[in-house]
């Protein structure tokens, strides 16, 4: 039954050459083809009736690095009629347009209210990447994270176990934490990040540590003070990566030698 469904879907795709064309364009772009001259072609795909085509067009626009696409991508990201993947990829694609920060940031903040978690997470990560310290953004991000207002943030430790998070998705929370590290201007952020180092998800705790170290110079906190703040940090988590000693040795030795061996050819 799955195969039948898939066949019907792929037959539809085969009948529609546009999807193939845009994906070919994307592959060519990754090979190094400049598409600055092809902007009008890409724009044609933006209005395509099939979301898969629009989705690929959004990715191509992001990869092109052409700032002329920024307004269109902002529109895609905040248009709730677009499919979730299209909105998410538009949020990701905007990372390429650091120069248009002033126009993009308000749209990204708007996207943080999206109903789809991947859009919120990618919008927050884009903010983390392109934003600079900004008090207004800082306050807004804290409001996105918590139900409480920044003015009563110092009372948070007492309410913390009561789940004061506004953002319940761990992935978005981690992304917002990173964004907060990028825009931090006041001690309120320091306190919020300190609270987030106690989050139940280690990804959020990890993001909080990184954000603390990122924002410390802006907030005028020394490394010694930071280490003092983080002295009770929980550094255990339910995840770890396998390490095969023989592979480590192999990689170390290989790193000191430029010779490509037969074993490499076999493995890859």
């Amino acid at each position, binding site marked *: 039954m*799955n*195969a039948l*469904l*898939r*066949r019907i*879907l792929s037959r539809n795709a085969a009948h529609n050459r546009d999807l193939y064309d845009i994906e070919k364009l994307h592959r060519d772009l990754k090979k190094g083809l400049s598409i600055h001259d092809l902007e009008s072609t890409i724009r044609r795909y933006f209005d395509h009736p099939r*979301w898969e085509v629009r*989705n690929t067009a959004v990715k191509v626009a992001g990869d092109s690095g052409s700032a002329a696409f920024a307004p269109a991508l902002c529109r895609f990201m905040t248009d709730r009629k677009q*499919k*979730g*993947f*299209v909105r*998410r990829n538009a949020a990701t694609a905007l990372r390429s347009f650091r120069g248009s920060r002033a126009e993009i940031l308000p749209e990204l903040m708007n996207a943080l209210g999206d109903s*789809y978690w*991947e859009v919120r997470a990618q919008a927050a990560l884009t903010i983390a990447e392109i934003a600079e310290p900004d008090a207004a953004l800082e306050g807004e991000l804290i409001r996105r994270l918590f139900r409480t207002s920044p003015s009563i943030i110092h009372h948070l430790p007492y309410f913390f176990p009561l789940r004061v998070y506004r953002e319940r998705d*761990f*992935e978005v929370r981690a992304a917002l934490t990173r964004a907060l590290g990028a825009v931090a201007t006041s001690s309120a952020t320091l306190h919020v990040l300190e609270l987030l180092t106690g989050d139940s*998800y*280690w*990804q959020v705790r990890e993001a909080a540590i990184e954000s603390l170290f990122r924002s410390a110079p802006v907030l005028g906190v020394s490394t010694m003070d930071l280490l003092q703040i983080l002295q009770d940090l929980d550094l255990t*988590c*339910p*995840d*770890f*990566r*396998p*390490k*095969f000693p023989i*592979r480590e040795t192999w990689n170390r030795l290989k790193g000191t030698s430029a010779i490509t061996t037969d074993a490499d050819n*076999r*493995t*890859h």
Partner: protein
Amino acid sequence: MLYTLFDYLYSHIHSLSFMRLFTYITFRAILAAITAFLLSLLFGPPIIRMLKKRRIKDIAWNYGVVDVQAKDGTPTMGGLLILFSIGVASLLWCDLSNRFVHILFGAFVWFGGMGALDDYLKSHRNSKEGLKEHYKYALQLGFGVILSILYLHPSLTPVDPNFATELHLPFLKTPIANLGMYYSLLILFTITAISNSVNLADGLDGLAIVPSFLIAGVYAIFAYVIGNILLSSHFLFRYLPGSGEIAVFCGSIFGAGIGFLWFNAYPALIFMGDIGSLSLGGMLGTIAVLIKQEFLFIIAGGIFVAEAASVLIQKYIYIPFVGRRLFYRTPLHHTFQHRGYAETKVVIRFWIVSAIFALISLAALKIR
């Protein structure tokens, strides 16, 4: 084979009457499990060496959630070891004149061959693309058609032809319907669904094998009860003469599964590959049909059902039609990895849940 020998000795030589022990299904099921386990331990290392020598290795596939490169190069097709152990143990301890056993060996050969072809193509092409999906479905449905004929045709069926088409549900004493020839559709669905669900769950070290042998254990108990005139009457099951022999076959699967886990436990020295997952799924599906406990798999194999359902919902409904994800990643075990749980933690938790599901399904013996 040994069953026939011991049965002959017990029947013809008075001084060897103690050999009647070997005619008991429970005893042979235990021996089959131990034999399969020891065979796995004995032949595991040489099979792993052979697979490494032939460069039948796993191809790393980046899911975006785990460091898959670390496992790159682990030999696959470990299902060979499972099939070898099940095959030899069953040949030794099953009553080879039993019709149910014939059908199970048919499933063993069919799905084993299909999985071997799939793995061979992957290894040969050095890619994740093995047997094309529609060929895979065609072969699964092909076996379903053969099983339908063998099970439903009045002159071929090993059970009462009227009983063969009755639809039984767990926790209910009586059949809810007689599907007639439409029962063949249920057989086709059961075989295809179970075979694929085990295949989908085979993504982390030890994840597929433990639920598989637990389900084999559950089905062994059900087969024994249903094939025993006193117990079937006590538990209000319809007596299926000869079906108790399935318990011996299930014993082989159980033992081979534990033996394989010895090598497949994290970090795996060998992966089962499609030869293992497709054949285990195919055999479990066939067992479910033979003892008419198809729907019990939804409980006993709850992990497999959840894994398959997550893929179906995400891949075939949510992504193409809704244009977004419902789960972080699919199959379901990748969702937990995405949430930051290590592979071993995910696998052990899935084992715990499988064990709970197995216990609940065993409750269906009494609660009817």
